């Protein structure tokens, strides 16, 4: 009987060890991680074993959050996502990830810790509440009631040539059919650039100003050029997601390097 129990324990021990072997975990952070906001991290695990699947594998980050995969087939990758929240802005790192499993019998938990070099920047906490010019305009997103004329927007209407418009705006084809000169009138696409001056933002203390600045960046960078002035350093105004991330990173690391 003792032999039987020992044999069973040996087999379950071996099965448990083999179950968590040959697994390669990976952690993929999301593009934007803000302090005090849960961010979805993707946990991916690859079973490199050729013949045996892995059962009930739990991937766990240092924070304690984890995800359990009931079965990972041979040579198969599976992924899931967990929400992690960081209290503070700045550099952050998830340096290890634990693979654990209670399989095959729920008496012991076997685990395996992997070193990962998952480094990322936690952007400042977002705090709304600052309005900066042109705010209303953005609210009417999608409407065509802009007053300003420009050269780079959509074609809005055809008007009679007043003499002020540049010659290249004249719609020669239409003018030929009518008796007067007609010009194309375009809307204005580019909004006025917004340069956030960190020091002149309202707020109690640096952290609040940074939080507001981050909110402004996130709010506007897709719609108009946003620049940043802080600590004597000026980042010229540009639009786009990439630029936005650059600004947020600058804010996140402000005073932290």
């Amino acid at each position, binding site marked *: 009987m003792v032999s039987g129990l*020992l*044999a069973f324990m040996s*087999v379950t021990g071996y099965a448990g060890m083999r179950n968590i072997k040959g697994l390669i975990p990976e952690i993929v952070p999301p593009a934007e991680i803000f302090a005090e906001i849960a961010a979805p991290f993707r946990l991916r695990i690859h079973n490199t074993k050729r013949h045996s699947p892995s059962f009930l594998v739990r991937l766990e980050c240092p924070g304690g959050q984890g995800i*359990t995969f009931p*079965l990972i087939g041979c040579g198969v990758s599976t992924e899931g996502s967990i929400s992690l929240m960081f209290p503070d802005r700045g550099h952050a790192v998830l340096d290890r990830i634990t693979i654990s499993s*209670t399989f*095959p019998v*729920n008496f012991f938990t076997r685990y395996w810790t992997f070193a990962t070099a998952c480094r990322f920047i936690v952007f400042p906490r977002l705090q709304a509440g600052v309005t900066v010019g042109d705010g209303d305009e953005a609210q009417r997103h999608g409407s065509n009631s802009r007053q300003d004329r420009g050269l780079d927007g959509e074609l809005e209407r055809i008007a009679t040539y007043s003499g002020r418009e540049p010659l290249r705006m004249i719609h020669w084809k239409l003018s030929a059919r009518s008796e007067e000169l007609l010009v194309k009138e375009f809307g204005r696409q580019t909004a006025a650039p917004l340069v956030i001056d960190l020091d002149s933002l309202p707020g109690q203390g640096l952290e609040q100003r940074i939080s507001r600045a981050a909110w402004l960046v996130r709010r506007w960078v897709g719609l108009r050029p946003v620049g940043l002035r802080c600590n004597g350093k000026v980042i010229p105004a540009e639009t786009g997601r990439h630029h936005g991330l650059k600004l947020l990173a600058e804010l996140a690391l402000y005073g932290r390097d």
Partner: protein
Amino acid sequence: MVAISSLTAVLSYAIALCGIVPLFPWLAATPRMALAAGLLAGIWQERRGVWPLKNWQFNLAVLPVFLYYAFQFSRANPVQPVVSALAIMLAVRLCGEKSVRHHLQIAALSLFCLASSSLFDLSPIFLLYLTLMLLLVAVSLVLLTFHAQDSRMALSRPHLRKVLAVGVLMPLASLPLLLLFFPILPRTQIPLWNIMAAPAARPSGFSDKVEPGTSATVAESRTIAFRAEMPRQPQQQLYWRGTVFNRMEGHRWVRDATVPSEHLLYKGARIAQTVYPEPGPSRALFSLDAPAIIALPRARGASDGTFEYPVPLTRRLGYRTESITSGILPTAGGINRFFYLRLPTDIPERVKQLAGDIRRRGTDDARRLELLEQHFRNGNYRYSMRDLPTGEHALEQFLFVKKQGHCEFFASAFALLLRAAGVPARLVGGYLGGDYNDLGGYYLVSDDMAHVWVEAYLEGRGWLRVDPSSFASNAGAVWGDGKQRSPAMKLRLFLDSLDHTWNRTIVTYDFEQQVEIARSAGKRLQKFEMGKAARAALPYLLLSMVLAFALIVIVRRPWLFASRNERLLRRFYRLVERDCGVRVQPGSQGLFETAGQTGNARVREFAAIYAGAVYRDRKLTPQEVARLHRILEEGFVTRT
């Protein structure tokens, strides 16, 4: 998708059934009803998914029942209350809502129920239930691990198949390991299943004295005395020697521990047996008459051809023995005639007269023995177990009045008369006969086969086995070989062979046998003859080498049978490392990179020719190959 929770529930009910079914016939009505109701209620609630009663309510309700059975428990009646309480606890667990812990409790209680059924009846079917239960428990444990992670987890059918396969494979994979652990682990002498039913004293057919006339009838007991593994022997040779009674005290024969020394010679073919005695109070070690060797540590042999264990055989063991079955035991030198002729003083007059008559008529011991045999053969003595002579003069009554008795009467009277007639004689106690179990290849000897016969010493020949019972007028009918085996007997032998296999491989395998195996392995190692062993092992060795070589070839084929290009490149790398002292990292470093690192013109030339062909996906021309070979032959050592 299949919900794990429903599967674990089904498994738990199946496990419970494995424990309940064998115990059910032995239970009282209340626990029986409780079990049936619990099982049905559990299944019904499981289907509905509603559990109106909470587990703590059940636990509270079962407390008085438990107390009731606790008061019922007594030394005289220990089993039934315990078993009933177990059954009711299992019933309660079955009908309550089940968490992982409750499923484990059901498995444990079911196992206890199954184990307790062995207190009533230990049949081979028990093993079947046990195997089934262990298999189910293993699968259930795996599923419960999933259940513990998430009670609402569901798996797709292909996934579930994989999980179940692991659950079934694990106990199966444990089997070879079990066989590995079993011979090496130290073990306890306590049987696991029937501790309470451990045999204390078995009513034995074999005793330490021969005292005919104590009762008028003898009840026959079919209790198993021992089993002896051996090839089938002629039935008339199946005399199992246990002990020798060498002194007559009053009207009974006993064994005098101070056996006079004599040197028995064991000549002739030896029959090897392995004997597995049933535990009992006796210390005698049985073997076919007469045993030359009994291989059992601590066993002591006496000079009268008997073997004894220092303590009663209260635990299961097995021993090997070798016997000579010729029926005659020659001695080297003489024997202590005085010791084997001693008689009590109060021998009945009629016995004295008969012995005197034989003594006078016989010229020597052999003739006297013959005369006595004739007296028994012609005296119309009957073998019987009933209506026996009793009292102090039982032997006299047997000899002259009733003329019927069992083997003790025949042997006692015969030895008494032999001694009185001046022929040294002694009684041998043991068994006669045995049912051969063809399936197990052993003789099954039961207590009703207990027997006593006589050994008479004839000068120049030795101790001669004489069975006076065979002179009975009805001996043929009693010991006839022509007994047909009934189907019931065949079934009994079949079941017994399973039982014996269990005892032999599991129960009797003890530390002494472990030591014995280690010792015999050591002996074999000492006897190891190098040349002989090598010759014997050579074919196997060659075969395994060929197999290993084939395996290497298959696995490393690309490496062993590299293409011409690869061979060239490998040789090139080797030379670069040797001659230029550059550590080459094929795979991570390009050919030109390596060449550049060496700063050697010939290396660069090689790289250019090689890469010129191989990297452009064309074959090397014979001229190029020749050139490359020449470069390699010259090596890359720069002479300055």
